[in-house]
């Protein structure tokens, strides 16, 4: 009997067996009375869940529905299986258990219907992984779909393989994916290329299979294929010095592709804010960085183009800035001409003053990457960096702190420490510890005098004592111990700190530690007299 409670329940039903005792009782017993209960559409279930006013109500609705779904799976209803799994995936997102749907994914993937495969593969990606024995069982279905499926089906199979394909699956299916790299449809090819990247990550030996097709793929004009190919080549180069050497010969071709994008653009369909396919440009720049690093000849080949991009990119929108930043990083990482390097760092310095916070963040991050290799160039922007300590945005001030600490040297230590101490007094709590330890470390390295060093440590202890590690106190003790001429001074300072704020536990601890100076301490404070 069909329950026709209005449109909400739909006109279809699934067969559920249950005893008079209600849902949850034994199933599958042919002697039991079977009643037909309509199966909720996904949207209807979602409606019901949204109608629940409390967490408990929601749980009740979902558990009830999951029981229906389990029964439906057990009965093996093929017609509504896809809908049952879709509902299961929905409640899975909300945090409810869905493991009993794993085998159903396999059945759906093996079905001939696209509707079934679509949700089945999605289920596999969301519910299955290498830890489940079931995952290997889809290998055969994937193999069939890759070799005989229509394009959308091949796409689904590749997507699944690139998401949850284990090493075994990858080894098994590499030949199928290799075939798809060079077949006519760009839709399938671009997916096969990224699947190859995943396969190489899982099984590095497969690099030998996927390296040869790259040369031909680089001649394609389809942006999706090019993007995937650049990603694949990058992966190969990062894994093997031999591959890196091999791909150096494509530098001129990469330069040509990038130059075309920058000057004319392959297709306006890919432009973002007037910039031709910034995603592809960024990927190419990243690959050029890897290929040009420590290689004079490659660096020279790309020098002119990098200069062109650095000077001509439109920086009024985010897309152009993304390209520009990548260009700067590439310039700094390869063997580029000195003039070009100065230009690059100056671009970053300019970005530090940009009104867009995202730009300032990326500028700070980039400068941090360069501070070791190009210290003096970055030093030129120290005043601006220090200004960024005053940022209200915690992400920005954190970056500014890291960079400021990295810029401290013996000639600027007094000025920098003043700024950093001021920052310590007002910085957000989660940066206190890092700031304190950073100051102490810098003081250790660059202290101009012992007295200055002691003052600095004391100031940190009194400003952020609770955030300082214990060994800071030990260091102070050692420092004072090794500076006889400053004993009286130190003890006086410690006493003052203690008198100011008796709750400064660390200061008190320090006093206790200097037990051998206790006599001096007591004399100084006049307690013995």
């Amino acid at each position, binding site marked *: 009997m069909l329950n026709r409670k209005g449109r909400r329940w739909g006109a279809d039903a699934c067969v559920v067996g249950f005893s008079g005792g209600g849902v949850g009782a034994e199933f599958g017993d042919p002697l039991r009375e079977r009643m037909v209960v309509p199966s909720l559409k996904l949207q209807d279930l979602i409606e019901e869940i949204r109608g629940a006013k409390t967490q408990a109500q929601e749980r009740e609705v979902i558990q009830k529905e999951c029981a229906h779904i389990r029964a439906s799976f057990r009965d093996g209803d093929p017609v509504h299986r896809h809908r049952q799994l879709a509902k299961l995936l929905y409640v899975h997102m909300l*945090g409810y258990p869905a493991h009993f749907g794993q085998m159903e994914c396999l059945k759906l993937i093996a079905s001939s219907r696209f509707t079934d495969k679509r949700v089945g593969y999605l289920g596999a990606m969301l519910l299955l992984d290498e830890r489940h024995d079931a995952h290997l069982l889809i290998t055969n279905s994937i193999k069939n779909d890759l070799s005989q499926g229509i394009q959308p089906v091949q796409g689904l199979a590749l997507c699944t393989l690139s998401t949850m394909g284990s090493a075994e699956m990858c080894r098994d299916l590499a030949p199928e994916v290799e075939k798809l790299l060079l077949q006519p449809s760009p839709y399938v090819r671009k997916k096969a290329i990224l699947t190859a990247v995943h396969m190489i990550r899982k099984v590095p030996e497969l690099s030998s299979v996927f390296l040869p097709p790259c040369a031909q793929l680089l001649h394609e004009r389809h942006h*999706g294929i090019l993007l995937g190919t650049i990603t694949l080549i990058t992966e190969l180069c990062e894994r093997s010095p031999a591959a890196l050497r091999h791909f150096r010969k494509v530098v001129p071709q990469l330069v040509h592709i990038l130059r075309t994008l920058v000057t004319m653009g392959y297709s306006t369909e890919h432009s973002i804010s007037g910039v031709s396919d910034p995603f592809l440009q960024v990927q190419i720049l990243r690959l050029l960085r890897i290929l040009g690093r420590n290689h004079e000849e490659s660096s020279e080949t790309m020098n002119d183009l990098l200069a062109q991009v650095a000077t001509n990119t439109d920086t009024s929108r985010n897309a152009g800035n993304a390209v520009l930043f990548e260009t700067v990083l590439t310039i700094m990482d390869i063997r580029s001409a000195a003039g070009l390097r100065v230009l690059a760092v100056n671009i970053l310095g300019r970005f530090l003053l940009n009104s867009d916070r995202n730009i300032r963040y990326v500028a700070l991050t980039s400068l941090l990457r360069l501070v070791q290799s190009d210290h003096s160039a970055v030093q030129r922007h120290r005043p601006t960096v220090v200004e960024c300590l005053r940022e209200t945005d915690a992400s920005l001030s*954190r970056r500014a702190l890291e960079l400021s600490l990295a810029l401290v040297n013996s000639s600027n230590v007094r000025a920098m420490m003043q700024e950093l101490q001021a920052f310590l007094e007002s910085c957000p709590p989660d940066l206190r510890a890092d700031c304190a330890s950073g100051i102490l470390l810098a003081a250790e390295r660059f202290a101009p005098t012992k007295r200055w060093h002691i003052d600095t440590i004391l100031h940190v202890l009194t400003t952020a004592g609770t955030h300082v590690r214990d060994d800071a106190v030990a260091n102070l003790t050692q420092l004072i111990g090794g500076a006889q001429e400053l004993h009286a001074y130190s003890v006086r300072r410690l006493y003052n700190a203690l008198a100011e704020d008796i709750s400064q536990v660390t200061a008190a601890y320090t006093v206790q530690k200097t037990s051998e100076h206790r006599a001096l301490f007591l004399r100084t404070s006049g307690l013995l007299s």
Partner: protein
Amino acid sequence: MIQAILVFNNHGKPRLVRFYQRFPEEIQQQIVRETFHLVLKRDDNICNFLEGGSLIGGSDYKLIYRHYATLYFVFCVDSSESELGILDLIQVFVETLDKCFENVCELDLIFHMDKVHYILQEVVMGGMVLETNMNEIVAQIEAQNRLEKSEDQVLA
């Protein structure tokens, strides 16, 4: 590499959860909650980058997010991704959703979670950027939807 893509509303209710690295279910839920709390603390006029929480990985990971009306779109990425590039990628994804759903709103994501996954799969695959040409993506999705519809008709 993109580690995860999360979409949740202003109250932390998940609307799309996609991980490209395997985590057990409980950890996944924890990550969603932790990410929501981190992102919620941010004002609207500060930068869109956050150092990642403790669960999804160490210092190499960050959260890049955009806030559209009632929804947060959060991409968790490692240092190999361009921060500004990901911002544009989020925009591409959202604009694609807009084209597929015709003036997309939160309700569309709620009631068509599966379709949102299918659309996302045409933009990001295996944690890598697959396609950014919106016209191509939309054409593909429409073709697939037609395929599904034709199968439904056969059944009826």
